[in-house]
């Protein structure tokens, strides 16, 4: 196995950065969506659920393509963002969005299961004790489903580390700018003789996600022991 080149190290850093940012950004939105799906009775829940799960169903490249249509310079959202000089594609922002979208269904599903398991009387109790809804949310609801949130977060983080298809379409494959581990691996494997380099990065990827999953498990055990 070859040692890691400086570009590889950069790719690792970028990957971690992307996965972390994507997870952190997706978390509040994911929580909100899970909350809608689990605890409210809004019309059209089934449709929302379907849309959330789309990235799971579509090949990631197609997801990337759809995101490009939406966020590209001529996409309607991209056009709008362009007015504020915010560019998504070919930037790390694009990689973050691609990762976030693809990992989103996993995050939502985990949190949703957690929310569905909360006894509503805890929430009622806190309301009658004078807590406003956001107060209840932060002091009761979120702590009570912290294990599920944790599970969803690690899952999404791991998934983000491995995101390839959507990222390469939306963010491009630019070494040092948007080239994350999976993109670097891809590049190595499309060069004859690059296999051993690819393998090193694969191992890094595996080790990273093992670490994340194990840390998640440990934290989970700690939470459950409380």
């Amino acid at each position, binding site marked *: 196995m070859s040692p890691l080149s400086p570009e590889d190290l950069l790719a690792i850093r970028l990957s971690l950065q992307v996965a972390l940012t994507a997870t952190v950004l997706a978390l509040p939105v994911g929580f909100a969506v899970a909350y809608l799906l689990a605890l409210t009775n809004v019309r059209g829940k089934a449709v929302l659920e379907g849309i959330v799960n789309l990235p799971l169903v579509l090949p990631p490249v197609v997801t990337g*393509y759809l995101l490009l249509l939406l966020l590209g310079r001529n996409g309607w959202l991209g056009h709008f963002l362009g007015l504020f000089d915010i560019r998504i594609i070919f930037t790390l922002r694009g990689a973050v969005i691609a990762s976030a979208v693809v990992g989103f269904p996993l995050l939502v599903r985990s949190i949703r299961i957690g929310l569905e398991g909360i006894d509503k009387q805890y929430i009622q109790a806190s309301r009658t004790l004078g807590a406003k809804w956001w107060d209840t949310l932060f002091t009761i609801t979120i702590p009570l489903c912290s294990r599920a949130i944790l599970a969803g977060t690690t899952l999404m983080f791991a998934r983000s580390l491995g995101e390839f298809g959507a990222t390469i379409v939306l963010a491009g494959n630019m070494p040092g700018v948007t080239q994350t581990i999976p993109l670097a691996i891809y590049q190595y494997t499309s060069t004859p003789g690059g296999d051993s380099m690819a393998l090193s990065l694969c191992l890094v990827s595996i080790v990273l996600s093992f670490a994340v999953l194990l840390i998640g498990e440990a934290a989970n055990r700690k939470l459950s022991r409380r």
Partner: protein
Amino acid sequence: TINLSVAASMTNAFNELIAGFSTAHPDAVLQPNYASSGSLAKQIEQGAPADIYVSANPKWMKYLLEKGLIVKGTDRIFAYNKLVFIGEKRSADLSLDNLVSLERIALGSPQSVPAGQYAKQAMEHAGIYAKLEQERKLIMAKDVRQALLYADRGEVDGAFVYRTDARLATTAKILFTVPDDLYDRVQYPVGLTTTGTKNDQAQAFYDYLNSPEAITILTNYGFEPIH
């Protein structure tokens, strides 16, 4: 059965070539497999059934030759391609020299995509590559199709693609053809695998690729046939 492992960029041409060959050999069953040259090479390396390997990247042909999976001497170039620059039609005429005036230019990653390699070569010859790279104007795509997609969607001001691919564009037009002398010739090698040499029909198809009929088809799809 003839198992064909064909680079995805030749999908259309080969669909027609297969149809043409089948009319002449009604009893022949052709089974194409379209994927990237690298994937195909690896599949062959792992013992996937393949009689004929058609690559868009001579490096992968060399790789298989060295592994002894393509029979020495059967590998040859059967088509050429040209590099063009596509983008939206603009008032001022564009050439390699004034590319620096553009904001973003897409090309395949030079390390892994042959088209990117050729484009880099051409720009280096024109003495603009370093400047473009420094100014971070180059957008690296995972393959030619993706570069094309970017140009077609207007995400970039232009992209280096093959002439054959340029035909897939819906809005982008060919702005100029890269002068031949600036880069090595774009070559498409074909070769017979060890199983292919034992397969008469595969041999026949291999020969068919040199027939006038095949050359016409290839030309129709924008390839430059061998003379």
